[in-house]
């Protein structure tokens, strides 16, 4: 989950009050804001947007740290927190929000109630090119392509930007896409790479060996290189050829393999992967997953008519196994995020 820091809040203050950053700093009780923000990153709020939003709203309204339209700024800050987490907060009917915030101001509304209201008013926004900040980096044809990405593949695109930023590169190359696939960790591509014993730490070390670290973290959007755009085009072709409706992480990895010459492909080879073997493993995994999906949907001719009881038993076993597996992946991802928030490298 994306949390706000003090500078995010001050940027919202400056925009709402139409003033410069220095003036926003002067008009804000920084200590109070820092205190409220620290409460939003407590273990309870760590992965719960409604919880974090409720704590933030309650804290900013009750402590009134802004000299100016405090309530408006507080709500705008919470809207920004929601937006950065691909959600939106319904403010209408605004009279109800006001009534709640009046009670927050006078210390009559328990924080649990504010969290509850926020939870009921939060709406998940559909991920779009715009929400990913990619609209000015790709042409319209590519824009259509991004709309076909699975949610996990879109997350990989966002992480690729972060990888580039962390390595202080002012471009998104195939290497950042590969690192993002590994970092995301839950997709078919990451599982295939894990089977080949390719870890994020090892891949990052090889990427650094090949291209090194940049000198300064880039500000704003980071553009895709022509090669990484080509890899994304290949991923679309791979999905089309396989008759798949959406582009998943496995198609992106297939695109990297098809390109074969970028830093990502070089990294895979340096880590001992045979690119044709990677392709083979992805196809194998896709077939297995398709078979399981088909089976779960009840279309498997070999099981359905003959052994309904056995099928039922196998189905529930399989479903719980898949659930458990997905939960484990989610837990690992959350743990990695927490470690990183405490400046601990999860791969160290």
């Amino acid at each position: 989950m994306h949390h706000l820091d003090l500078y995010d809040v001050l940027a919202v203050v400056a925009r709402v009050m139409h003033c410069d950053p220095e003036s926003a700093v002067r008009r804000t009780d920084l200590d109070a804001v820092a205190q409220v923000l620290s409460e939003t990153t407590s273990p309870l709020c760590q992965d719960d947007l409604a919880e974090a939003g409720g704590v933030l709203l309650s804290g900013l309204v009750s402590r009134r740290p802004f000299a100016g339209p405090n309530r408006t700024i507080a709500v705008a800050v919470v809207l920004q927190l929601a937006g950065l987490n691909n959600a939106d907060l319904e403010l209408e009917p605004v009279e109800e929000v006001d009534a709640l915030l009046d009670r927050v101001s006078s210390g009559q509304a328990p924080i649990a109630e504010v969290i509850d209201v926020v939870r009921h008013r939060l709406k998940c926004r559909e991920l779009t090119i715009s929400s990913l900040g990619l609209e000015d980096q790709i042409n319209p044809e590519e824009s259509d392509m991004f709309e076909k990405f699975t949610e996990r593949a879109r997350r990989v695109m966002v992480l690729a930007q972060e990888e580039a930023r962390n390595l202080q590169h002012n471009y998104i190359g195939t290497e950042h896409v590969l690192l993002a696939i590994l970092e995301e960790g839950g997709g078919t591509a990451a599982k295939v790479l894990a089977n080949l014993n390719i870890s994020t730490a090892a891949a990052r070390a090889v990427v650094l060996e090949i291209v090194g670290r940049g000198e300064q973290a880039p500000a704003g959007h980071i553009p895709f290189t022509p090669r990484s755009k080509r890899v994304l085009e290949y991923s679309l072709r791979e999905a089309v050829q396989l008759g798949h409706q959406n582009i998943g992480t496995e198609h992106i990895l297939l695109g990297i393999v098809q390109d074969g010459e970028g830093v990502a492909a070089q990294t895979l080879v340096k880590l001992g992967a045979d690119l044709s073997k990677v392709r083979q493993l992805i196809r194998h995994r896709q077939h297995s997953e398709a078979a399981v999906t088909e089976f779960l949907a009840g279309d498997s001719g070999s099981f359905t008519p003959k052994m309904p009881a056995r099928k039922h038993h196998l189905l529930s076993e399989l479903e719980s196994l898949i659930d458990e597996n997905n939960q484990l992946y989610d837990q690992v991802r959350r743990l990695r995020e927490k470690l990183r928030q405490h400046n601990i490298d999860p791969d160290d």
Partner: protein
Amino acid sequence: MAKEATKNILLRLDPELAERLQAVAEVEGRSVSDVAREAITSLVEHRRNDARFSLLLEENLARHEQSLRRLRQDD
């Protein structure tokens, strides 16, 4: 509540950062709060220049403009 004419900044800093600010202030012959304010201002400016952050903020404010305008003020 912060006042319009507030000039003092109260911010808890970790000791290492406070020491660094002190060092910069001494070298440049300025007050620590002046250096701190400048550092914070530049970080806020950096955030305002982040296109995704700014776009999202503008979208949020535009989408909820009417509602935000109708919010009662508590001060």
